[in-house]
């Protein structure tokens, strides 16, 4: 697959404080790429540099194999932080101004507004829109002219449950059509449901990058229960010397087991121990993420 976006050693500092340091990333066509990080980790600064809103101190950005420029941005639909439009223009007129920049005909404005469910509210002034409506309008502007890439910074911010569902559906549909999505989010559930690749930023530096499943494949434990817990623990230590075993509410938790649940069950049965509880547990994406960021244990 060809790289839609490539950054090389991208760096930015504000008043001497590094916001992003030597960030090199590559996003292939058709990927749904999640940018994750705690507050202040440099996600928005990174997206702003990719989109030409912030001037990098060092490094380069290449879109579609060429140095980033306004011409390339015409092929990108983007929403950075809160949507910003003329407060005294209607929703439709605001999208029309962006359509004028992107050279999209009027019918495209109608299609985009209908796609986000704002067609009936098109005559309302932007300042009278609710937070969720503003967010939808921002996404409508981003969808104008069927862009090749969607760059969305926390797209479900302030949107109600129905809106979140709709926005995820729009992203999914866009990706299904072969489009590339670059998405920053705090919501791990969103990343899990939407992104196939992920990059984690920590204090402005790239901490992890790769397929979502591979990045979050850490952790996991087995829960085992038997009538005689002491005998079970002895047998487990014999079978799995390196595993960490912890008692918890009448069961045993086995971390870093080299044997699978089925293998353990077979060996324990051979040793005369009948299990009444055997469950494979996976830590939540959120706890794995926090563990990756050094903010907690994946369990």
């Amino acid at each position, binding site marked *: 697959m060809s790289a839609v976006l490539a950054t090389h050693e991208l760096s930015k500092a504000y008043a001497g404080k590094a916001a992003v340091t030597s960030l090199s990333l590559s996003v292939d066509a058709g990927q749904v790429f999640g940018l994750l990080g705690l507050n202040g980790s440099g996600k928005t600064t990174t997206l*702003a540099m990719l*989109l*030409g*809103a*912030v*001037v990098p101190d060092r490094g380069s950005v290449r879109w579609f194999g060429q140095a980033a420029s*306004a*011409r390339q*941005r*015409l092929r*990108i639909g*983007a929403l*950075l*932080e*809160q*949507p*910003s*439009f*003329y*407060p*005294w*223009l*209607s929703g*439709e*007129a*605001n999208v*029309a*101004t*962006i*359509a*004028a*920049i*992107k*050279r999209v005909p009027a019918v495209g404005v109608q299609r985009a507004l209908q796609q986000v469910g704002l067609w009936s509210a098109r005559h309302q002034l932007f300042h009278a829109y609710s937070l969720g409506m503003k967010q939808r309008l921002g996404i409508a*502007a981003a969808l104008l002219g069927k862009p090749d890439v969607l760059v969305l910074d926390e797209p479900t911010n302030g949107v109600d449950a129905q809106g979140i569902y709709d926005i995820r559906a729009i992203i999914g549909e866009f990706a299904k059509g072969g489009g590339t999505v670059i998405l920053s989010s705090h919501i791990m559930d969103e990343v899990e449901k939407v992104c196939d690749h992920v990059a984690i930023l920590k204090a402005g530096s790239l901490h992890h990058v790769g397929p979502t499943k591979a990045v979050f494949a850490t952790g996991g434990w087995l829960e085992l229960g038997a009538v005689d817990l002491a005998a079970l623990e002895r047998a487990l230590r014999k079978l799995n010397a390196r595993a960490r075993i912890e008692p918890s509410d009448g069961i045993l938790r086995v971390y870093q087991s080299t044997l699978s649940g089925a293998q353990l069950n077979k060996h324990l049965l051979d040793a005369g121990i009948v299990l009444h509880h055997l469950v494979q547990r996976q830590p939540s994406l959120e706890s794995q993420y926090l563990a990756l960021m050094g903010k907690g244990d994946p369990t």
Partner: protein
Amino acid sequence: MIRLLTAKLFGYRSFHRFTLLHLGLIVLLSYAAAQLTLNIQGSVDQLHGLFARPAVWRTIVGLSRWLLYIPAFFVIQLVCAEFELRVVRAQVIAGLERWQIVLSWVVQNLLLVACGVITTIACGLLLGYASIEQADVGVASSLLSLLRAELGYLIYGMAFLNAAVLSGVLLRRPVPAIMLLVLWPLLIEPMLTFTLEHKQLAAVVPYLPFASLGTLVTWHNPSAAFDPFALTTWVALAYGLAAVLVAGLLLERTDL
């Protein structure tokens, strides 16, 4: 860029309302005043004279200038929204070059000035004084110098507003920037001119940005009254160009 400007200006319902209100009020007030003075012809010849050609042009321009506060509401609304960095950012992200944004500000301001002037001329024509004769032109040596009052006010107001908002935004300190820009023409320049002797005054005043712009507003041709002011149009233009260049350079390096 032109598509963006037209999409924006056509989208502004307040632009249409304020322009129509401005135009309508000039026509209505002029017509009412003309009817009134015609009815009391003879008793108040002076008033009647205001609505007889060629003096009517001067009256229309004066009325139009006085009524400029109506579209001023819209202009303030537009310019303040224009210099909201987040809006600029949205346009840059959408694919506009930064220099195109500066250029669109300039064109937009020129368009608004043109709107004011066209409104004034249209009012004169609407009132039934469609043909401009030599006598009309003779009112203030030329029609252009007659319109200068309105043009001057517009340029002064727009330049001040743009400079104030732009400085506030680019310096990211709106309150001190706007205060400085208010204090400069109201306090610093007048105080400077107050302390100077007549000879020095003549040498310095044309080069003060707001004093030079201010002379554009004057009704009479200032060059006749005070020779150094003949420079002011060019000085004002030079300041305007410098301001556009500085804004362009600053915006090019500003993080949005």
